[in-house]
């Protein structure tokens, strides 16, 4: 008989490994998708249709030399990838993948998600500062600017489904959308909130057109320019895990989570497909836009997105009050 404390660990262990597996293969999906957009073939050599490419990449990264720059702040530099990775993995803790299937569907699920996902900035800044590199420092500076600017619109747009449901518990939000009442179909409010959510997710995930942290053309690789080998892999893993987590959140908040035709046990599959849809939406945007400048990004957030999400939140609250109480 396994002890009780061990059973508690089984769920997290499974989720963690599934997420790592998802990350490795979603990179292949992204590369294939991007290749199609650019009239290329994409990875093709390793395994049939490049299916073993992610494994080859991971092996390569493990075998790379781990370089620490001479002038780097060793402690901070070595700790940063881990500090970055932990919040990116923690966000999966409160996501229910099917009714009752998840690590912990706590009653403040979405609050936990939003709080933890904005903690990744600590790791980012440590990486940028600890590297003792000017590109990395500039990138870390931009990271702080951007995350502060886009957290509020992100939270506000994610709060719209919360208001419509009346619960902070992710399981409840998913449950009220069963039977096709997805929040994206909610007249006007649903679509607007979805668009704003996608835009602010892009910024929170540091994806093009908001990838000023990475900015290959001017900052080379931004905060991770000095990282190599497994430390680089950890940062990459964290970034993609965050992206998958946000895609799950988007699918849950707006696309009805596991609701879909077919028997109930297909629920997780539907959820996964919707997550992939969200991910490909972000990828599609990534490969069609140029990056915008740091001042333009901040202006977009503070002058347009923040007032818009705030107005939408107030409108939603009004609608909810009106529908429950009448005027």
């Amino acid at each position, binding site marked *: 008989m396994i002890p009780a404390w061990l059973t508690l660990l089984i769920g997290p262990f499974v989720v963690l490994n599934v997420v790592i597996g998802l990350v490795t293969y979603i990179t292949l999906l992204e590369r294939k998708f991007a290749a199609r*957009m*650019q*009239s*290329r073939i994409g990875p093709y050599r390793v395994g049939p249709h490049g299916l073993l490419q992610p494994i080859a990449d991971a092996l390569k990264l493990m075998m790379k030399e781990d370089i620490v720059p001479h002038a780097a702040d060793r402690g901070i530099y070595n700790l940063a990838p881990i500090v970055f990775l932990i919040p990116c993995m923690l966000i999966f803790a409160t996501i229910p993948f099917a009714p009752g299937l998840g690590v912990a569907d706590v009653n403040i699920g979405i609050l936990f998600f939003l709080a933890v996902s904005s903690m990744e900035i600590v790791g980012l800044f440590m990486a940028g500062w600890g590297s003792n590199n*000017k*590109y990395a*420092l*500039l990138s870390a*500076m*931009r990271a702080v600017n951007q995350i502060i600017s886009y957290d509020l619109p992100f939270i506000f747009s994610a709060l719209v489904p919360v208001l419509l449901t009346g619960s902070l518990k992710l399981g409840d939000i998913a449950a009220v959308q069963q039977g096709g009442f997805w929040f994206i179909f909610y007249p006007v409010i649903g679509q607007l909130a979805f668009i704003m959510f996608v835009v602010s997710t892009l910024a929170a995930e540091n994806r*093009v*057109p908001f*990838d*000023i942290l*990475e*900015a*290959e*053309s*001017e*900052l*080379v690789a931004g905060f991770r320019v000095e990282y190599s080998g497994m430390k680089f892999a950890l940062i990459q893993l964290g970034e993609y895990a965050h992206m998958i987590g946000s895609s799950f959140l988007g699918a849950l908040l707006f696309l009805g989570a596991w609701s879909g035709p077919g028997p109930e046990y297909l629920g997780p599959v539907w959820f996964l497909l919707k997550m992939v849809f969200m991910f490909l939406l972000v990828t599609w945007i*990534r*490969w*069609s*836009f*140029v*990056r*915008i*400048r*740091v*001042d*333009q990004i901040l202006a977009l957030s503070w002058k347009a997105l923040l007032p818009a999400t705030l107005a939408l939140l107030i409108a939603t609250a009004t609608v909810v009050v009106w529908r429950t109480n009448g005027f």
Partner: protein
Amino acid sequence: MLDQSTVARVELDWAGPERITMNMGPQHPSSHGVFRAIVTLEGETVVAVDAVIGYLHRCHEKLAETLTYAQYPSIASKTDYVAAMTSEFAYVMAAEEIGKVEVPKRAQYLRVICAELQRVASHLLWLGTWCMDMGGALGGGATIFLYCIREREDILDLFESLVGARLLYGFYQVGGVRYDLPDGWAAQCRATIDRIDQRIGEYEQMLEQNPFFLARAKGVGVVSRELAQDVGIAGPLLRGSGIPWDLRRTAPYSSYEDFDFRIPVETDGDCFARYRVRMVEFREAIKIVRQALDKLPAGPISSRPALKSVAQIRIQKGESYARVEGPRGEVGCYLIADGSAKPYRMKWRGASFSNLSILPHIIPGHKVADVVAIMGSVDPVFGEVDR
């Protein structure tokens, strides 16, 4: 006049916002070769830029003194390797001017066809790399880059079937050109330029209806009309600042007066204006190629006998300066001949070199990201800058 306020320097005991000095280059994703910009930053804003060149110096001008008139054209292509046809063109024109060598009409037309195809190929590479500068190697810019490379590839295929080489040609020779068109080349060329003509329109739509592209390109890196004249820039940069100067029109050479084409001019002087000028130039170059193929006269392709030895061409004493309108502006070649088979002295006027000197005037005051966009819009090729 040089505006001194734009050339900021970091003084000792500076008490303003903290400044850092950052190297962009010589090994940097944005440097289009090996170029080093030492930028001084106040936060994200660039207050001074110091351009350092010379990393790609290969003694081209000295080399020209050791090579004969028959040998050097294929080496001349290595100065501006993105538009190799152009520099060959300038070199043979300078030699012909001293030697008073006639060029048959057919050869002149073939020269025009190749020069214009080269302009299209060069602008395609510019469009791709410039968008990549703004979008990043892994971002949206790379999509346009790969499309452009696909089209450039078609033109390189044309050159390959004509000359046998894809990058450095040696197609131009004193007195004419080296090869005549192979069978079916004209039809293949027409099909290619028709396809490119149509796809240029697609790219225009992709970019100009993209608000993020417009936000990055409009109002960035403004070169005023006066500054453009003072610094002596040429080509699309000059025409983007409102000066209708194009050597093909102002000082026609190689039968350019036979063709009907337009010189695009924009008055804004920003990155977007330069982009517009080049987009129109694509179409005009394609138009010239079509006309040249239609009107291509019969006859010999060279006024000189076929080459048997490298020292066969001897040119009388004299000196001359020949210039052609390359994709990046005026490419000039100053040549002094001493009567032997090799020039006594040779000097290049590289278009990229002159254009690059605009950078310290326009970059200060912009954000770091704009440095890359402006540099891309200037379209420097460092083979031509350093020679």
